[in-house]
């Protein structure tokens, strides 16, 4: 059985969706707004109601407690939220060295969250999410607010993580060039169905 296995997944009026992903593989996903990309990721993280089966290394979603599943199948939403005063309070232990790889300075952990830009939130949100060392990353337009330089740092950080852990990822983006860069296979959601995307479109 594959590393991450989606079988006959249905949510709202979307699906059924079938997809097998191997370890250290990144899947690129795009599609028009409102086509159900975000809700697919939410269903995979078990945040929305759905039918069908999702397996991580042969462990079925419903056989784990929902919060155990979510710490292994981790969703980074398009907008991240910060509810405490400073950045560091949202971490068990703030990974200063790793933050440097994403272009942050030494003192970022002390920053008040009110001064974070949306791009900074996205990069820090990734670090915070990876603290649980998840096996599956569900990334919903993770670089939408990043400048080209930080976008590149973000991409290589995720690719490294996926390769070394090894984990797998589904990366949602409207940027077809980006999906070509970072993923091995590209798919498209249209009218609630998953289509294989021909390279070069």
């Amino acid at each position: 059985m594959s590393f991450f296995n989606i079988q006959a997944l249905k949510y709202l009026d979307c699906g059924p969706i079938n997809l097998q992903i191997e370890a250290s593989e990144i899947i690129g996903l795009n599609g028009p707004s409102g086509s159900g990309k975000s809700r697919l990721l939410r269903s995979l993280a078990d945040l929305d109601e759905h039918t069908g089966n999702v397996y991580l290394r042969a462990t079925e979603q419903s056989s784990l407690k929902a919060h155990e599943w979510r710490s292994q199948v981790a969703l980074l939403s398009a907008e991240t939220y910060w509810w405490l005063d400073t950045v560091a309070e949202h971490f068990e232990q703030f990974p200063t060295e790793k933050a440097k790889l994403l272009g942050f300075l030494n003192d970022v952990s002390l920053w008040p969250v009110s001064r974070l830009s949306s791009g900074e939130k996205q990069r820090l949100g990734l670090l915070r999410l990876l603290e649980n060392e998840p096996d599956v990353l569900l990334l919903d337009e993770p670089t939408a607010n990043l400048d080209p330089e930080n976008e590149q740092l973000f991409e290589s950080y995720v690719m490294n993580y996926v390769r070394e852990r090894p984990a797998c990822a589904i990366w949602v983006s409207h940027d077809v060039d980006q999906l070509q860069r970072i993923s091995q296979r590209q798919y498209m959601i249209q009218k609630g169905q998953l289509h294989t995307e021909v390279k070069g479109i």
Partner: protein
Amino acid sequence: MLITLTTFDLSLAAVLVVMLGAISAYMKLGVAKQLYIAALRTTVQLLLIGLVLKSLFESTQPLFVLLICLVMISVAGWEILSRQKRKLKGWWGFGVSTGSLFISSFLITLLCLFTIIQADPWYSPQYAVPLLGMLLGNTMTGIALGMDRLTQTAWQQRPVIEQRLMLGESADKAISDMRSEAMRAGMIPIINSMAAAGLVSLPGMMTGQIMAGAEPVEAVKYQILIMFMISAGTGFGVISVLWLISKRLFDDRERLCFRRLLRQSAD
């Protein structure tokens, strides 16, 4: 040396309320109607309960006492619900508020009757009914505030709760901050009145007892008893109501379940 109040005395106080209503109508403050309705309700309800208590004290039927208590609890539960901006749908709303009142008021009153006051018989309405009434009246404020705070903040901060769920926190942990915030909101009134008692305010029950001719120190002892019971009752009531609501806000897969909430216009 109990000075009885005449109809004339009460009318004099009523004139003040009427004057207030007239002035607020003149200044278009818009509370006159509500004020008059509430004043009328107070008069009618209190007169009725006075008559009920009078016949109750004469009969001392345990079933009759129980019936009165149940009516009081359900009305208080209903009052709590009608103060919520968002309430749990269906029987859950009424069940949660009435159930928590049962813990906060009914059980505490029973405990007090059995172990502290030890009236004979234990259900003698002269103690049971006023005690329960005082507990209900005070704890329902705390419970209503705590409940409202929890459902409102959960509703407004939905993205934060979902963010915490995405990070692998359990539903219980994801809502824990909001729950302690709501607990604080529910407990503040009784904490304030305990802290201010004697220095700023003389509590109503004690004032009434003293005016009716009781020995001040005896009145004070009863007042302390009541304060402790109210704070314990409010605390247990708020804890149970917050626990039940925060369970009910999530489904069995720890997802937020706002379709179980019903929005209503609070008056």
